[in-house]
């Protein structure tokens, strides 16, 4: 970790129009949540439907993608990362500093809005809010680490990440049941299902894997991709941007 790198990353991530994009999505979610509450009379199952379909399925991966690729992608794209890499700072701490900023931003702009959305749309004793909060936090950490690593690995990180988050998890998962086992969203939903206990099936919260499997896979993926990103950053080869 390096405080200067972190400060630079925060400025690059939130200083431009990108931060507007980061604000618009949570606001949209909260608006939809209010509408759902008005329409369904604060029923927890409608709230779970909105949170599962829109918040966890679309908003969270997109936010993590914007944040994860945003902390390092533009610098690699325009080649200015060389000025950072040329400094006598270990590449490991550069990457970890960027990851730390990305994770903090994810929590503020994605995880908290998901929780607020669930609470606004309808809840019983904040059970749904805490369950989805845990799921969103776990999924957010894994997604952000994955997309950050992708943007170090490939220049097409945004497209590859979207193919995974939307095509693989949502569309293919709907047709091929086995695909749902290899899905960050399903892994993160496992603890939420456990926390809700017997209410889970009534509210439509279910995961394709059991909790120990889900947590283990999440940890393996998060640590693995971070290690891979560090390895790749130490031998980064710059290609001309087009």
């Amino acid at each position, binding site marked *: 970790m390096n405080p200067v790198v972190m400060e630079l990353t925060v400025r690059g991530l939130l200083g431009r129009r990108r931060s507007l994009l980061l604000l618009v999505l949570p606001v949209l979610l909260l608006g939809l949540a209010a509408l759902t509450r008005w*329409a369904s009379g604060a029923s927890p199952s409608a709230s779970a439907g909105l949170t599962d379909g829109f918040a966890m399925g679309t908003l969270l991966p997109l936010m993590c993608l914007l944040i994860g*690729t945003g902390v390092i992608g533009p610098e690699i794209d325009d080649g200015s990362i060389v000025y950072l890499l040329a400094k006598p700072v270990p590449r490991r701490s550069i990457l970890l500093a960027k990851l730390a900023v990305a994770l903090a931003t994810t929590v503020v702009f994605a995880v908290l809005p998901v929780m607020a959305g669930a609470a606004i749309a309808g809840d019983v004793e904040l059970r749904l809010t805490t369950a989805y909060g845990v799921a969103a936090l776990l999924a957010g950490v894994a997604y952000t680490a994955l997309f950050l690593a992708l943007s170090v690995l490939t220049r097409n990180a945004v*497209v590859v990440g979207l193919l995974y988050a939307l095509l693989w998890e949502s569309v293919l998962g709907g047709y091929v049941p086995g695909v749902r086992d290899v899905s960050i969203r399903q892994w993160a939903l496992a603890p939420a299902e456990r926390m809700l206990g017997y209410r889970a099936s009534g509210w439509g919260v279910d995961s394709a894997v059991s909790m120990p499997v889900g947590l283990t896979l999440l940890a393996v993926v998060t640590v693995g991709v971070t290690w891979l990103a560090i390895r790749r950053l130490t031998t980064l080869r710059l290609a001309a941007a087009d």
Partner: protein
Amino acid sequence: MTDATTPVPPTPAAAGAPAAGERTDVIHDIGFRHYDGPRFGRGWIVRTLLLDTVRGVFGIGRPARSKVMPWALVGILAVPPIVIGLVSLLTGDDEPPISYTQYLSQLQIVFSLFVALAAPYAVSRDLRHGVLPLYLSRPMRRTDYVAARYAGVTIALFAVMALPQTLLMVAALLAELPADDQFVGWAGGLLASLLLAVLLAAVGLAIAAFTPRRGLGVAAIITILTVVTGMSFALSGIALGQDLPDLAVLGGAIDPYRLVDGLAVWFLGVDATIPEFAPTTAGQAGVLAAVYVVAVAFFGGLLLQRYRKAGRL
């Protein structure tokens, strides 16, 4: 930039560009080598820029790493028709399990990704590198540039949508499904593809023209298209729950894919992707058609507006 890809035409088309000869503010001689011969003029420049846009979107004439993503997406689109063909061959049903227009909605993420790749390629680089004054110092007009880029992206998108549908038709014919139905369905699918390509190109280019960095442009386009889809389904679901079927149908108007699907259902009589949200009255279809026209005009106008000043953003 575009000259390298121009094949030498048999005859100069200078006569086809009356405006070119009259303008005095056109810079041709930029100091490398003097040239006095005939010039092809404005129409030829537009044609070349259009061709270059279509080729460039698919990575033709660009380095190998620019070819990876577009062709990977084309490959992803080509797999389902082959699988579907095999399935209908094995089950021997009368209809393919997915219709031509439903295919557009089912794989909309891939089409969105293609727009997100193509639109920033077409307009963001020229804006970021500030080379528009170079384009405009030739006989080409400001509107010509926009029209050529827009048409190029639309043609590329239409090709990407038409290819899997054609494969789907070939697969259906090989499985000996009724040929008449398949031809009619295929033609309807192509018409819907054209409508969708025109709308998506306008939306994508308008967004890309305001985001000069390529990465940001890709992210912005895909985010807006996906979120709009998610919102429209959430709104329609709420409206259906409140017993407001009119609003449930009109909720599809904010999503390009559902908009075109709704238009296809009403005007072509094809099966809807989601039957509950399909238009059932002429009034609903009329509103959808009006929204379509207004959306194309709005985003097209926004794009032209962006090029009122040809500088950087």
